[in-house]
């Protein structure tokens, strides 16, 4: 009997060992096949051919990029670009698992919040030498965008494809009902002490169930029917891109000591905390829905139900806001703050090449095409995003206008240089893990604004 048990034991160990060897060989991404590029050597794109796999997440942009791929095929009949789309919820999981198992795409749409980690993990191909060799013009993009994609080592890891900014969407009927003219929304101002003309406007636009407005006596903040200003899905964690970054940014405050690649966050500064305190007061007064109330359907959906008069959101939501049936929407620029100007967060996407790609020459050629006017003009004309090349941005503006959407309130930030960069640092996910609950609690009134100093310390400790 003991012998039987031993045999069983041997069987177990044997099977385990077998599978160990099977997974040991080849597990783990990386590897330098396909013609250079990993250590910065230029990729030779002159005889590129074969298949290139390309991933993106926004299905709304799929037709535009398919059109790009078709045009690319005409110029490069030997290269076959296969585009696959995965919903945002799955995109990064698929990518990370692909990196680990060695099954990632050749080229993929990259995001500023994620790419620092990919650079640290050495999953991206630096493009500099290849671009120089091919005589590619890296200065053809909107100002500041290309530099966002330079790593801490100074190397370039992506070519900008589009950018987005933030503005105020408004419900034309609710505005008119309140006796407000659209022109009144163009030059609002806010400050942390009394909120300025901005807060007055929001208060006036808030209506409770008995019809009283937020600036009238007898207003019941527990029974609000229409909020003057919406809240985009929660507290915004440490970024507040569409929630509060436009206020902190116009209050002479910066996220980090320098950007990109700062190593010290400033959530403890008075300029920041006073702004958040003021913003939380708007929720408290009933002009803005609470974090609990907005845990649910997205801002554009609640807006479509007629519950928000104003809503700060990004240019990627233009389709959702303008598509809401039965609601006429307009866009106004952000309010100016104590700094004297408005401030919109400026974010952008780029395309990166995976270091384990088996066809780097074709991948590089495709990336160069994506970053060139030929493709970006096509994308612009489809009116889904703002491409990074100014000429293409203009085309997008015109295409939007043709659809009845005036996007000037978004683009004014670029024209008047009232943008600030999305903060790019290491440890982005862990910072989010710290700031999300901290911000939730402050905006819900469960913790005082000063608790953000504590959170700030935790964040800065990550940088050693």
């Amino acid at each position: 009997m003991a012998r039987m048990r031993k045999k069983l034991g041997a069987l177990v160990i044997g099977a385990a060992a077998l599978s160990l060897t099977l997974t040991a060989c080849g597990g783990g991404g990386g590897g330098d096949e396909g013609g250079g590029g990993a250590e910065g050597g230029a990729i030779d794109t002159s005889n590129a051919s074969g298949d290139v796999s390309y991933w993106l997440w926004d299905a709304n942009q799929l037709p535009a990029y398919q059109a790009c791929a078709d045009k690319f095929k005409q110029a490069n009949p030997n290269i076959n670009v296969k585009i696959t789309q995965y919903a945002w919820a799955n995109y990064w999981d698929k990518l990370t698992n692909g990196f680990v198992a060695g099954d990632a795409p050749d080229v993929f749409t990259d995001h500023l919040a994620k790419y620092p980690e990919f650079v640290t993990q050495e999953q991206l191909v630096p493009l500099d030498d290849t671009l120089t060799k091919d005589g590619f013009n890296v200065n053809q993009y909107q100002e500041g965008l290309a530099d966002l994609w330079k790593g801490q080592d100074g190397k370039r890891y992506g070519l900008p494809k589009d950018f987005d900014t933030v503005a105020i969407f408004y419900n034309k009927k609710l505005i008119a009902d309140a006796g407000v003219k659209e022109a009144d929304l163009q030059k609002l101002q806010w400050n942390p002490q009394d909120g300025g003309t901005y807060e007055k406007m929001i208060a006036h636009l808030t209506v409770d169930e008995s019809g009283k407005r937020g600036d009238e006596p007898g207003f019941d903040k527990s029974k609000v029917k229409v909020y003057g200003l919406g809240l985009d899905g929660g507290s915004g964690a440490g970024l507040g891109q569409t929630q509060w970054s436009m206020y902190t940014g116009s209050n002479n405050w910066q996220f980090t000591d320098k950007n990109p690649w700062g190593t010290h966050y400033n959530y403890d500064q008075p300029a920041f905390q006073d702004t958040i305190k003021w913003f939380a007061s708007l929720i408290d007064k009933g002009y803005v829905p609470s974090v609990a109330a907005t845990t649910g359907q997205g801002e554009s959906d609640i807006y479509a139900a007629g519950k928000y008069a104003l809503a700060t959101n990004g240019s990627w939501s233009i389709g959702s806001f303008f598509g809401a049936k039965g609601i006429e929407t307009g866009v106004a620029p952000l309010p100016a703050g104590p700094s004297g100007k408005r401030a919109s967060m400026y974010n952008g996407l780029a395309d990166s090449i995976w270091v384990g790609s088996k066809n780097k020459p074709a991948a590089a050629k495709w990336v160069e095409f994506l970053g060139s006017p030929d493709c970006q003009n096509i994308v612009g004309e489809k009116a889904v995003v703002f491409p990074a090349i100014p000429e293409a941005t203009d085309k997008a503006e015109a295409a939007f206008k043709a659809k009845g959407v005036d996007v000037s309130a978004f683009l004014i930030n670029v024209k008047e240089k009232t943008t600030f960069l999305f903060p790019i640092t290491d440890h982005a996910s862990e910072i989010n893990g710290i700031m999300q609950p901290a911000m939730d609690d402050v905006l819900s009134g469960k913790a005082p604004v000063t608790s953000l100093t504590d959170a700030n310390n935790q964040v800065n400790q990550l940088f050693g």
Partner: protein
Amino acid sequence: MSVVDTIEPIDRKDFVPGVRGSDRPPGRGDLGMALLFILPALIGFLVFYVYPFFRGFYFSLTRYNLLGTPRYIGFDNFTKLFQDKLFWNALLVTVEYVLINIVLQTILAVAIAVLMHRLTQSTVIRGLILLPFLISNVIAALVWFWLLDYQIGLVNEFISAIGLNRIAFFGDATWAIPTIAVVNVWRHMGYTALLVFAGLQTIPGYIYEAASVDGSTEWKSFWRITLPLLRPILALVLVITVTGSFQVFDTVAVTTKGGPGNASRVMQYYIYQKGFAEGQFGYASAISVILFIILATVALIQLRLLRAGESDLA
């Protein structure tokens, strides 16, 4: 003496070897045969479960971000997690969830199964009860996320219409976990009921017949016949549902994402956050090992208490 009283659970000391079927094998028993029978399952088990588990256990002793090489750090991850208040929060929140979910789900499932068994033979009704199980966790969560929305959800519109204050089902810290628990009960109660129902089918009808001849009511028969004879199936149901309940993830990922604050940051979600989002795969593995130990212990206790290795029907 009524039939009800004669059906008693088989006591270990009462077994007579060789006739009633015993667990004491003479010599090696059927070992050779058994090996053949379990061979395919064993292969699957070793390759797809055991090996990954040991690999994962190894990772729990390392610092590893999935894309680099793992660096051995001994039990540091474990000491770290015992001091991590978010770990204890995750444990607490998960236990709260499991209690609400399991109590509600088991009671409802048994009730439904008995109702289906004794009230009606309609397959349509059986199908209807099973319906929620046909859609995935993610979709069920999405639909309820909308129905229970604070501002535009149907449930809150109704609550508001009858004059009460709206409830932030997913946004309020005290409501978040119970809401998620109830959504999952909705999804799983039909499935659990079907398992119990399959067990009810195994109880021969003549027992009930004899009992009612003896004057036993439905209620009494339920407690003295049905429940005891359902023991093996109830053991199955409880182990499966408790284990599954501890591993709740999809609903949280779709709705609250751990919030508000940390009120719904259940263990599996915390593990996922640490391992995939924050790149601390070694630490996430350590937490997974702890979760595994908890689950195995709970299951062992359940199986022992319910004497799941025996059946009174055989």
